[in-house]
C-alpha cells in the first residue's frame, strides 16, 4: 500500500511537470504578451516597438525562452507561483484573497450536485419505468444537454419575472459576513452548477443501482430479513457509488469550468473569474500558477478516489 502511494505520488509529480510545461508552452505560444497589452493601453505615440521592447526588458520577458522555462521550473520547485505582472502581487496572495469565495460557491455547488443527484438517481432506479422514473430521467438528460450558462439564464429569468428577490451586484458578501445577500448572490449559480454537475452523476447512479440490485448479495440481504431502506443505502448505494467516484476527477474539472463561467456571469470575484481575466490581460504568471493549483487539486482528488476504493470495496487491494 505504502509503495503504491509513493509510486502514485511520483507519477503525479510527472503529470504536474507535464501540465506546467504545457501551460508554459501554451502561454508563450500566444501572439500577444503583457508588455504589448500594457503599452497599447497607456502609450499613445506613433511607434510602440521601442516602448514594448523596454517594457519587455523591465518585466523580464525578453530573456531567452529556455532560460525563462528553467527559471519558471525553479520557482515552482521552491513553491513560488510567480508574481502578477499587473499588480506586482504574488500569485499566492492573489489566490488567497479569492480562494474563500470560490470554495464557498464551489462547496455549495458540490453540495447541490450530490443533494440532487444521489436521491434522484436512487429514486429513479427504485421506481424503474414508472412515470416518476421517466420524468426524472428526462430531467437528467436535459440537464446534461443544457449549457450551465443557459440554466443560469433561465433561473435568472424566473427570478426576474416573478420578482422573487433582487440580486445585489455591488460588494462581495460572504455567508459569514452578510448571509442574506450571499444567499441571494449564490443561489442561481449554485443551482445551475449543481444541475449541470449532477445530471451526469444521476444517470450513472441510476444504471449502477439497477445493476447492483440484481446481485446475489442483495437477495441474501433480503433473505436475512433486512429492512429495505438499509438494503438500499448500505448494500446497494455504497456499491453503486464506485463508478460515480471514478468520474470524480472529471466532475471536479467540470465544476471548475462551470465556476469560470458562473463567476464571470455573476461578477463573483473568485478564482474562476481571476483565471479568465488573467488570460485576457496576458498576465501569465498568475494564470500559470492558478492552472497548476487546479491541476494539483484534480490529480490529488484522483489519487484520493483510488485510495477510497480500497476502503469502500475491500476486494480491491493495491500493491
Amino acid at each position, binding site marked *: 500500500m505504502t509503495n503504491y502511494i509513493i509510486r502514485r505520488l511520483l*507519477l503525479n509529480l*510527472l*503529470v*504536474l511537470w*507535464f*501540465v506546467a510545461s*504545457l*501551460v508554459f508552452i*501554451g*502561454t508563450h*505560444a*500566444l*501572439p*500577444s504578451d503583457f508588455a504589448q497589452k500594457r503599452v497599447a493601453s497607456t502609450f499613445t505615440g506613433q511607434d510602440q516597438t521601442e516602448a514594448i521592447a523596454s517594457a519587455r526588458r523591465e518585466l523580464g520577458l525578453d530573456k531567452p525562452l529556455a532560460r525563462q522555462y528553467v527559471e519558471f521550473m525553479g520557482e515552482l520547485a521552491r513553491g513560488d507561483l510567480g508574481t502578477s505582472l499587473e499588480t506586482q502581487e504574488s500569485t499566492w496572495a492573489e489566490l488567497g484573497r479569492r480562494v474563500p469565495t470560490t470554495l464557498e460557491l464551489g462547496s455549495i455547488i458540490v453540495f447541490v450536485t450530490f443533494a440532487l443527484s444521489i436521491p434522484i438517481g436512487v429514486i429513479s432506479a427504485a421506481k424503474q419505468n414508472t412515470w416518476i422514473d421517466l420524468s426524472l430521467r428526462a430531467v437528467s*438528460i*436535459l440537464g*446534461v*444537454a*443544457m*449549457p*450551465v*450558462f*443557459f440554466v443560469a*439564464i*433561465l433561473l*435568472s*429569468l424566473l427570478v*426576474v419575472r416573478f420578482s422573487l428577490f433582487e440580486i445585489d451586484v455591488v460588494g462581495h458578501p460572504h455567508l459569514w459576513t452578510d448571509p442574506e445577500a450571499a444567499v441571494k448572490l449564490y443561489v442561481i449559480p449554485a443551482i445551475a452548477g449543481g444541475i449541470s454537475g449532477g445530471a451526469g452523476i444521476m444517470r*450513472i447512479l441510476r*444504471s*449502477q443501482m439497477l445493476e447492483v440490485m440484481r446481485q446475489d448479495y442483495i437477495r441474501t440481504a433480503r433473505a436475512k430479513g433486512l429492512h429495505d431502506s438499509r438494503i438500499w443505502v448500505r448494500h446497494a448505494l455504497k456499491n453503486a457509488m464506485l*463508478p460515480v467516484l471514478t468520474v470524480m*476527477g*472529471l466532475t471536479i*474539472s*467540470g465544476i*471548475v*469550468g462551470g465556476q*469560470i*463561467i458562473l463567476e*464571470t456571469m455573476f461578477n463573483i470575484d473568485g478564482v474562476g473569474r481571476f*483565471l*479568465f481575466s488573467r*488570460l485576457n490581460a496576458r498576465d501569465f504568471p498568475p494564470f500559470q500558477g492558478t*492552472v497548476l493549483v*487546479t*491541476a494539483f487539486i*484534480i*490529480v490529488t482528488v484522483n489519487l484520493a478516489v483510488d485510495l477510497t476504493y480500497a476502503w469502500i470495496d475491500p476486494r480491491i487491494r493495491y500493491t
Partner: protein
Amino acid sequence: MTQTQQPAALPAAGYTDFRRRRSVGSTLRRAGALARRNKLGAVGVILVLLILFVAIFSPLIKRYDDTESFQTANPDFNPTANPFEIAANPGLASPYILDRWESPLGSDHWLGTDQFGRDIYSRIVVGARLAVLIGVGASLIAVISGSIVGLVSGYFGGKIDLVIQRFVDAIQAFPGLVLLMLIVSIMDRPSLTLMIVALGFLGFATSVRIVRSSVLGVSQAAFVEAARSYGATDIRIMLQHVLPNILAPILVVFSISIGAYILAEASLSFLGLGPADKTTWGKMVNAGRVALDLHPWESVISGAAITLAVLGFNLAGDAIRDELDPRLRGR
C-alpha cells in the same frame, strides 16, 4: 441439351453475410424495430436528422442574411432639424430606426430580431451549420488522432505506454475549459479551424484512453498470437487484426462526444472566445443578456437550440453505443 447444374453456395449456419443488399423496405422495417426498442434513441436520431437538414440546407432555408440589420423609415425624421432640436429629441436625426428586439411571431421575423435588428431565425439557422461543423469536425480529429496514439500505446505497452498515459493524464488534469481557453487564445481572433482543432485536442485524451483499453482487450486474443507466429509485422497486426476489432468502440466514442463538443464550443463563444466573425449560438445567448429582463427571446431561443442539438447528438450517440458496445455504458 445438357445443362450443368451449379450447386448453390449455401451460407454456413449462423453466418450472416453483411454484404448482402437489403431492400429499402426491410431496412426501414429494421429501423422501425430499433426505434420501437429504443424510443429515446429514435428521438435523438430524428433531432440529429433535423439539425443536419438545417445545417446542410442553411443557405436555402435562412430567410435573410444573418448579419443584415433591418430598419424602417423614421416617421419623425426631420432633415432640417437644428442641433438644439436634435439634442432635445434624438429621434429626429436619423432617417431610419433599427428594428430592435422584435418579438417572435409578431412580425415578418419568425423568431424576432436582436439588438441590432438582425433576424434571429436566420441567425439560428446559420449557427446550426457551425455547430454541426464544429461538433463533427472536432470529434473526427479527436477520434482519428486518439485511435492512432491509443493503438500504439496499448499495443506496444511498456515505456511508450507509460509516457503517453502520463501525457494524457496531464491533459485531463487541466479543467477542459481552461485548456480550450488557452489554445483558442493562440490567435487574437480565433478562427473556426483553430476552434475545431482545440476541441479535438481536448477529446484526444478521452479517445486515447478508450481506444487503448480496447486494444489491451484485443491484443491478448488468439488471432493476434497467430498473426505474430506467422511473422506478421507490428504495423500489419495493428492495422489488419487489432483495428478492425476495435472499430465499434471507436465509432461509439466518435458519435457519443459530438454533443459535448457543441456544448464546449457554446461555452467558449459565450465567454467571447468563439470563432471570430461567425454567428454562433453561444454568442447569441451572451448577446441576448444585455436586455434579458425585457427581451429574453434571443438568449432563450439560442439556448434552446444548443440544448436540442446537444440532446439529439447525445441520445443518438447513446443509442449507437447500446447497439454496438453496451459495455461502454457509464463511461
